[in-house]
């Protein structure tokens, strides 16, 4: 890619920030595979959508890959045992969530043998019907591994209806500290490209473009080598700028086209999948292997051996940390525990939370890395506005939210906020802007629900009134009809009587 081309690509995308990436040395350490821990804690909801329903009972023996949670509803994903052993509990476990509140999950005691259940393999995925690929991906419980954890089958088979022309593979990995995708591409490039080819077949797209930020030269080289024989798959080097991993920004940089607000990529013929998802799709389609493990980056100044580890789903974060040598003793101590990257990841209260399908990183950061400092009032410096990759005015929105005017905040485009955190990252007054926006969005959603409920009540009330009115009208009509009928009958009767009388007269006349 020429310099001009690179410049044009960067020019497409205004705003964004460039945090220190902290990806090395973790990214350069070889990928390690973690053996199953003594117990795995598998939550029944690890995806966007409805939770799965447990289909095993306490005491059941399960094999690795065996389905233990059945998807419920259109946007849901199956859950599988990530080790072989015995189900010892079904109930509350600590959720990988800032609240530390419990979530329903299945606890399996491992027999440490990692025996797979019987899997439905397929020698030639390209002979399969796209719908069948979707079914297999759904069977395997594959969700997007980039962090949002949207059920992949929904997006793959959604392409069939929406005429997807371009498949974009999100390998930008723009979050600082994370390198799980980088490592995956370096070590499993061929598998990733195979998965991408299967996804191309499944979506019906004509070509695939793999977007990789230019701070990962080894991954770029590995992927370039792996796509060598594939005419329809291209590796694209893109500038390093957060939030390049945002779907809409990646599309903009790679195609120059914008996804309409309130719309989806499929509206402009594009579908975006994470590169890790491609490997999961390949394993699901070729070997029938469900998603029971993922690559997690262990990083932060407090981690003794930062690196990337393939972890069985349901392993406690603390055990992954222990596998990586635990916490450094010579350090001040951790300031923050995070799941995911520092820009959008969530803080968790303890390391006793399980790794789930969407967990890309476990970070134990010290105070310097978190960049703690004193806040203050907004001085309207406009840094947030220049950092916003969507073109919003975070300072104006925040001022409205603070004044309690969420409607006005909405008028400034609150709904278009992607919560990337660029504004709060640069704010010299350290105003928790993202928190303000989440709060306002929640308020608006609650209000919309309230309005909808009122609307429903009004509709029902109106329907009831209509029904009562109709009943009464019908009753009245029936009464009227009956009255009319009886009147008619009466008049008929009287006519008959008259007639009879007349007849009698006639008769009598005749007789007379």
């Amino acid at each position, binding site marked *: 890619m020429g310099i001009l081309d690179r410049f044009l690509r960067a020019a497409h995308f205004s705003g964004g920030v460039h945090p220190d990436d902290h990806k090395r040395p973790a990214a350069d350490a070889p990928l390690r595979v973690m053996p199953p821990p003594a117990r795995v804690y598998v939550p029944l909801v690890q995806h966007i959508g409805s939770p799965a329903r447990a289909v095993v009972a306490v005491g059941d023996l399960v094999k690795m890959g065996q389905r233990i949670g059945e998807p419920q509803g259109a946007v849901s994903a199956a859950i599988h045992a990530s080790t072989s052993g015995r189900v010892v509990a079904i109930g509350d476990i600590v959720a990988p969530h800032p609240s530390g509140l419990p979530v329903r999950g299945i606890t399996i005691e491992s027999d440490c043998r990692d025996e797979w259940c019987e899997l439905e393999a397929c020698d030639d995925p390209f002979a399969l019907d796209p719908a069948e690929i979707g079914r297999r991906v759904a069977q395997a419980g594959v969700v997007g591994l980039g962090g949002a954890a949207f059920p992949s089958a929904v997006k793959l088979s959604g392409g069939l209806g929406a005429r997807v022309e371009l498949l974009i593979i999100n390998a930008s990995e723009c979050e600082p500290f994370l390198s799980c995708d980088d490592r995956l591409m370096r070590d499993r490039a061929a598998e990733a490209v195979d998965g991408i080819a299967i996804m191309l077949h499944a979506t019906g797209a004509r070509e695939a473009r793999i977007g990789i930020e230019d701070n990962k030269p080894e991954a770029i080289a590995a992927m370039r080598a792996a796509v060598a024989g594939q005419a329809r798959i291209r590796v694209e080097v893109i500038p390093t700028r957060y939030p390049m991993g945002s779907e809409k920004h990646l599309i903009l940089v790679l*195609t120059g086209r914008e996804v*309409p607000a309130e719309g989806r990529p499929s509206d402009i013929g594009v579908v975006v999948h994470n590169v890790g998802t491609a490997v999961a799709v390949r394993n699901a389609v070729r070997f029938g292997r469900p998603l029971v493990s993922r690559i997690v980056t262990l990083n932060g100044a407090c981690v003794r051996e930062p690196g990337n580890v393939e972890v069985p789903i349901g392993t406690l974060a603390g055990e992954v940390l222990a596998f990586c040598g635990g916490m450094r003793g010579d350090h001040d*101590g951790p300031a923050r525990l995070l799941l995911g990257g520092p820009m959008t990841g969530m803080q968790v209260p303890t390391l006793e939370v399980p790794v789930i399908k969407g967990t890309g990183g476990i970070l134990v950061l010290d105070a310097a890395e978190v*960049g703690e400092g*004193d806040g203050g009032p907004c*001085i309207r410096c406009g840094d947030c*506005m220049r950092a916003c990759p969507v073109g919003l005015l975070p300072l104006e929105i925040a001022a409205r939210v603070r004044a309690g005017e969420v409607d006005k905040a909405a008028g400034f485009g609150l709904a278009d906020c992607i919560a990337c*955190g660029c504004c709060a990252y*640069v704010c010299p007054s*350290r105003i928790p802007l993202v928190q303000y926006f989440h709060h306002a969005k929640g308020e608006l959603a609650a209000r919309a629900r309230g309005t909808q409920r009122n609307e429903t009540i009004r509709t029902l009330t109106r329907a009831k009134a209509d029904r009562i009115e109709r009943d009464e009208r019908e009753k009245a009509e029936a009464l009227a009809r009956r009255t009319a009928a009886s009147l008619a009958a009466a008049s008929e009767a009287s006519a008959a009587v008259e007639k009879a009388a007349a007849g009698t007269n006639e008769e009598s006349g005749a007789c007379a």
Partner: protein
Amino acid sequence: MSGRELFMAAPAPHAHVGADVGRTMRRVQLALLPATLFGFWIFGWPAVNLFVITVGASLLTEVFCERLRGCESRLWDGSALLTGWLLALSLPPWAPAWIGALGGFIAIAIGKQVYGGLGQNLFNPAMVARVALLVSFPVVMTHWVAPLPLGSEGAPGFIEGLRITLGVVPVPDAVTSASLLGHAKTELSRGMDLAQALDAAGGTLSAWHGARPGSLGETGALLLLLGGLYLLVRGVIRWHIPVAVFAGLALPAAVAHAIDPSHYLPATTHLASGAVVLGAFFIATDYVTSPNTASGQLLYGLGIGLLTWIIRSWGGYPEGIAFAVLLFNALTPVIDRYCRPRIMGRTRRGAPIRATQGSAE
């Protein structure tokens, strides 16, 4: 693992670029330092005294108002110091102490704290104070002195300077002088040809090297320019406002001068005299009171430049940048309303863009 309170949920992002308000203020102060020291040198001890009094009054007022409002002290973020500093630079260098004290009080109490403190004010506090003093005490506020560098013959010593500042002795008539713009205005009103009047005053050149009568800080135009460039390089300010102010002033000035040189000063004189450089880089760029978007900033800067030229050419005062800044401070909310960035995926009017199905690229 250490205390539980360490892990209280904090919102994302869990990283920060590291900037803070204090650093920004310190950078602006650093940028002002050369011109300020130059002002001290050419106007001597009375100027130093005035600076100390003005800044001191601003800081004291800040502390007093924060006590009164019962809010946390923000004295150390440097914003009150900067306000006092800018005000001092915009005052006549030998102004009496009470002008500095009153100015500092007005700037902080009326210009800033009554609105709710840092970030809430509509007008630039230093300019509010300067204009309030100018319209209330026009004679004292236009009492300029000729440069008398420290140590030169006739320059007041420390004690003498203190007596001048405290008003014990009047400013000697021998050192009073008119500023270039004031001189031009007076001569014009007397029906003099401007070209001759300027030659008599020593022309534009003296304005650039700074040895001329004027406010304490405005005369070192080149040093202010240097400071402004530092702010640009550091990313504290962006180019839009200063460039637009210069353009808004220089373009009409150049056109008018080309048409009628005997009535209109040349653009270079306009740019080099008065407080244009100080205003363009340090006053108009005040975050709180200026628009945020690039287009808004261009509009705002052009307006300030143009209005400054109009006031200087036809208004009642020889210098107009303080008035122009205040007027456009008032217009900032309106400019902000009409100059918003385009939201991704939407048209300028805010409707979702049309989806175009078709081959990608």
